[in-house]
């Protein structure tokens, strides 16, 4: 049960590359925070700085009230789960889980008890005397978590722990991690590039781009109210539909399209209109003629991809849109659907700065 506080944390590599450019964040006790962002955005570096595996170039990191900038990783009382598990290959599961406790000089009987309890909780009790190479990916992942749990650390750090698992197992483990975290109520920081994992696990989500936090908040707030174009396009699957537009005083204009229902927008700037695929609807009076290109059937709903007739962007004739609808909607390919949208729920961004205008 510990707070983590980051103030103006900066990481610059000796070659001048800036991985993290000033991050401020306050993580409450017991909170599950997810860092999400594209690869190379600095999210892993940030996590590794909290773990103590990377030096902090500037700024401060506190765990509870202690400044930990120069504290060694072992003394920060954090535990980390790695993407490739990083189990010690020559030790048994028991050896792997007890190594950290042994190094801390805990008596053997106590170690045994903790290891047994953690193994019970993770359902790996039967494998305690096996070696990692005799376990499946999911079991190894559990051992890696067990190694973190037995330590009873102040903070759990997860560095893309599920990316090496197959899709089905990933969903199972995701639920299990969430359940475990609820049960143990330990402050956790989880790094991923998978936005589904991010949305489902996080109490609060930090979208990181280019070494900075773009936006931080509850996952659903980020989905409903993204503050920037980046967040809007990163969060949500299928991706938000984006259309470059200009404002003529009453309408948003792109090629032949004139979209009504907007006001108070700058009319000299290049803008981007964002509409979530599920905000579109079939509407005979709608403003988007969609030429159907591909229909993906996902089961309960269908995703219809196609070009918006008359909408252009840099020479591209028909802007691609995605329309999310129910399973019984199966239009012919190359037929044209007319789609409408709710202007109240649509988002408008400044194309150059990426800021949300409404």
């Amino acid at each position: 049960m510990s707070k983590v506080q980051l103030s103006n944390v900066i990481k610059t590599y000796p070659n001048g590359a800036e991985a993290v450019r000033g991050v401020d964040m306050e993580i409450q006790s017991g909170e599950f925070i997810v860092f999400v962002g594209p690869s190379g955005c600095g999210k892993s570096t940030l996590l590794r700085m909290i773990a103590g595996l990377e030096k902090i170039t500037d700024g401060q990191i506190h765990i509870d009230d202690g400044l930990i900038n120069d504290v060694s990783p072992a003394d920060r009382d954090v535990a980390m789960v790695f993407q490739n598990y990083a189990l010690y290959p020559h030790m048994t599961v028991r050896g792997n889980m007890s190594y950290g406790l042994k190094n801390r000089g805990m008596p053997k009987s106590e170690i045994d008890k903790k290891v047994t309890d953690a193994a019970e909780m993770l359902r790996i009790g039967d494998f305690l005397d096996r070696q990692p190479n005799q376990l499946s990916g999911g079991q190894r992942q559990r051992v890696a978590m067990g190694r973190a749990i037995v330590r009873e650390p102040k903070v759990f750090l997860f560095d893309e722990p599920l990316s090496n698992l197959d899709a089905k197992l990933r969903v199972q483990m995701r639920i299990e991690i969430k359940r475990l975290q609820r049960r143990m109520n330990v402050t956790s920081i989880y790094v991923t590039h998978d936005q589904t994992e991010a949305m489902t696990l996080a109490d609060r989500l930090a979208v990181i781009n280019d070494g900075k936090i773009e936006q931080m908040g509850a996952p659903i707030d980020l989905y409903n109210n993204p503050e920037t174009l980046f967040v809007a396009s990163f969060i949500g699957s299928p991706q938000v539909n984006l259309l470059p537009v200009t404002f003529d005083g009453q309408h948003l204009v792109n090629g032949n399209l004139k979209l009504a229902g907007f006001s108070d927008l700058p009319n000299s700037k290049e803008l981007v209109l964002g509409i979530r695929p599920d905000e579109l609807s079939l509407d005979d009076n709608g403003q988007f003629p969609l030429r159907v290109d591909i229909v993906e059937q996902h089961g309960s709903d269908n995703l219809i991809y196609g070009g918006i007739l008359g909408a252009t962007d840099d020479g591209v004739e028909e802007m691609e849109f995605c329309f999310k609808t129910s399973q019984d909607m199966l239009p012919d390919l190359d037929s044209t659907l007319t789609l409408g949208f709710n202007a109240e729920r649509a988002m408008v961004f400044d194309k150059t700065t990426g800021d949300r205008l409404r």
Partner: protein
Amino acid sequence: MKQWNWRLISTHAILIVGVCFMSLPVWVAFATSTHSAEHILRNGLQFWPGSDFVETYRQVLFVDGGVMKSVLGTTMLKNSLILGIGFAVGKVIISMLAAYAIVYFRFKLAVPLFWVIFMTLLLPLEVRIIPSYEVVAGLGLLDTHVGLIVPLIASATGTFFFRQFFRSVPDELLEAARLDGATAWGFFKDILVPLSKTMIAAILIIMFVVGWNQYLWPLIMTTKEENYTLVIGIKQIYQILAEGGELPQYQKAFALTILATLPPVLVVLVFQNWFVKGLVESEK
């Protein structure tokens, strides 16, 4: 079908010729060592074992003055074992520690130092034998086991092998160990050494054989007979043969040769599984 048979026959013929070529001298040496000195002098090299096996080897191994002026075959065998084992163990320890420092500690000169170590491959013992002798003599270590072994144990090849191996160990293991509170020594002892097991075994075996076969250094290092290794003993006995005098004891010279080849062969036979594993398998 016929063609296939021919192939089989020809490859086997080549292999058999190869085997004979390699092992016939050893066999002749063994067979000759079991005859009496007179018999050999009269009839030359022997292809079939004679009746003096027990007598010759007893003389060589256990009888005072049986083979050299004073030293026993067993003493030379012991000296050779000490040299072989000390040489191998020393090399493994030194090169593992050197590789550990080079790979895991980010000090400024790590890379240049590694290349300096690597370049010592260009300076084998034969090149630096006079200064080495001078140093060992200055330290008063002539005719001692320490003086025999220590100048030989720095190993660029060993360091290189371990460096390559350590670099292939995933960084996350180190990071996990750091988070688990392992010290630098703890990580080395608890994680790197067990991971390198097969590698260590392979290098131990190679180095044992190399150490066993050392010739020049023990030759100039040892002046007293009781410090002779088997290899030096062989050299001395053949020298006596060449100088003439009494009835040449060819059978004892051959017996000594056979004795000198046995331990390396045994080591390789017994440990060949480990050896192959260490060279081809990476357990990660």
